[in-house]
């Protein structure tokens, strides 16, 4: 079974990530009985059908797709994937923060695509808590990527207070 990093450990994972292959349309895509992350277009087209299935709900956003379209349904999802088509495409960092900080999404946010050890620290800061590492990479080694820095300056999804507020709180304590 495939493995992912989730909450700082490596776990087996049975979610499928569905994509629209050549010739597929959101209407025609076959939906499996097992848990699956569906493309946003499929969710938008077949929302009611998906809600009616007993499986937990998952959707994934490509880097050019924002979280706005999911706002009304956000609490329904067990997993929301955010895609990094290339690891240098930074849009999904914003998407993840918006999911957490604006839409208060509490479920799993999973990084998909070109996910590598040297980016997952920033991903975690932005609220991503599961990482489907690129298949040819050593997932056990990559765990170290989550522990690079012990302190950070900015407020983000993992730390609501910027360092300048915490410094004062520490001094006052």
């Amino acid at each position, binding site marked *: 079974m495939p493995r992912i990093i989730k909450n700082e450990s490596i776990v087996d994972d049975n979610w499928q990530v569905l994509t629209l292959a050549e010739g597929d349309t959101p209407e025609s895509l076959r939906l499996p009985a097992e848990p699956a992350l569906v493309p946003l277009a499929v969710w938008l087209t077949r929302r009611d059908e998906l809600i009616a299935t007993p499986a937990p709900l998952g959707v994934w956003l490509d880097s050019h797709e924002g979280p706005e379209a999911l706002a009304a349904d956000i609490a329904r999802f067990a997993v929301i994937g955010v895609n990094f088509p290339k690891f240098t495409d930074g849009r999904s960092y914003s998407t993840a923060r918006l999911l957490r900080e604006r839409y208060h999404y509490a479920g799993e946010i999973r990084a998909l695509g070109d996910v590598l050890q*040297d980016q997952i620290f*920033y991903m975690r800061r932005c609220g991503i808590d599961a990482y489907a590492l690129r298949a040819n990479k050593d997932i056990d080694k990559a765990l170290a990527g989550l522990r690079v820095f012990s302190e*950070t300056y900015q407020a983000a999804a993992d730390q609501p207070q910027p360092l300048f507020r915490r410094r004062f709180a520490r001094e006052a304590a």
Partner: protein
Amino acid sequence: MYRYDTTDQRIIDERVAQYRDQMARHLAGELSVDELRPLRLQNGLYIQRHGPMLRIAIPYGMLAAAQLRKLAEISRRYDRGVGHFTTRQNMQLNWPQLEETPDILGELASVEMHAVQTSGNCVRNITTDHFAGCAPDEITDPRPYCELLRQWSTFHPEFAYLPRKFKIAVNAAADDRAVIRAHDIGLGLVIDDTGEIGFRVFVGGGLGRTPILGKLIREFLPRRHLLSYLDAILRVYNRYGRRDNMYKARIKILVQALGIEEFARQVDAEWAYLQDGPTTVPDAEFARIAHHFAPPPWETLPAEDSAHAARLSSDKAFANWVKRCVHVHKTPGYAAVTLSLKAPGVAPGDITDAQMLAVADLADRFSFGELRVTHEQNVVLADIRQRDLYEVWQIARSHRLATANIGLLTDMICCPGGDLCALANARSIPIADAVQQKFDDLDYLYDIGDISLNISGCMNSCGHHHVANIGILGVDKNNEEWYQITVGGQQGNAATIGKVIGPSFYAQEVPLVIEALIDVYRENRGDSERFIDTLQRIGIEPFKARAYAGRDRRRVAKVDSNEKELVNA
């Protein structure tokens, strides 16, 4: 200046460890060339024409003497004993070994320095006025705001993979010495009627391939909102900036495409969620940082030192230096001094390890142990007593740091160009050298007076040629080096992008063309008119006509359409 606390230090130490591990994994074959690239770039490491180049961050140009001594040591031990100051007030080493770069970063961390985000598609080094804290026309010291921005931008998790690089500059004086409108975000500090400090915010400026001056997006942003508002701008840019074409990926292209009103509307919509959130900066934090920039213990001195006045009248060479390199200080009896790194025969902005040590000693002896790097690639000692100027001059002169040419034709901004840089289309240092040779007479230079001449070896415009009175741009045509000339650009409050005068020139023609442009100025200038004033009064045509007089450009007319494409792409 700002000193790290244990947290700042820990973050930088952890960065070194991270980079050391990345380099080890790369050398072990676990991290590919492509995977390493953005990581090394965000640690200042380029792979250049002859090998690696390391760009060391000098936040807003501030250096302590001990830090400059460390740079001298590093340049001697790991390089060839020369550093090069850049227009982002950073220092580049041109000959480090790839494998040794983690050690260099470790050395830097030992003096509270690093190479964080000096390259890559992220927020780069914040720049500001090199006379911060001592300029008479300053509203308040900009450096605390720069340091606040340094911390905010350092390892910002959301904005490490922007569509393209992102440059921010801060000005807090009546005269803009930081070219803020040539930046992705330019911040002009202002105080409103109630005494509140805030910023005029410009967005979407930049040089490069498509030079544009930043547009005003906010007339007054109270300082407490600085970070949340910048988060909003960066988020809009990160989400919607173009990523399909690196030449159209800067924020200026997004601002241009949407129009400033629509861009501002999107930023405001985003900011509505962020405003007054935890990233709002409390006064206590401004006070904490400002404390690091408390004025040095200036003495109470008479405004005019009599011994200094006597030397001015008795020593012409000293008087010339004072005229060009010594600047008014807000404190009576003090002056700011520019040490010129534009001596004849030296690449503009280059400084040897011995010169670094000499400057560090000068700073310790005469200027409270601190110095600044200017975006014009010189060094400033900001707090010199008037009565010490003569001695400072003598010492500086003995180290070839006292060329009296600041603000003159030979005080050129110049990128490393094709001699060193892999991006360059043409060499720029030989052009600077040829200009220096052609204009080697100081009296002639004084007669020409205030003028700016900047040289870039490619469209990336590191040499800021667009905002020079005379700009020189290296272009490649069929593997030949050609040089395009612009005139009429300027920095400052009236920042202007220069105009191309026509088809480009051979390298050997460039000094002659400059001379022709200067001749037109000298023949036409009115009383106390600078080059730029005359140019604005009589227009570009007389300059253009003289530049091409006797030069047959027909042979290259066809190639020029390619060049135009390159320029406007």
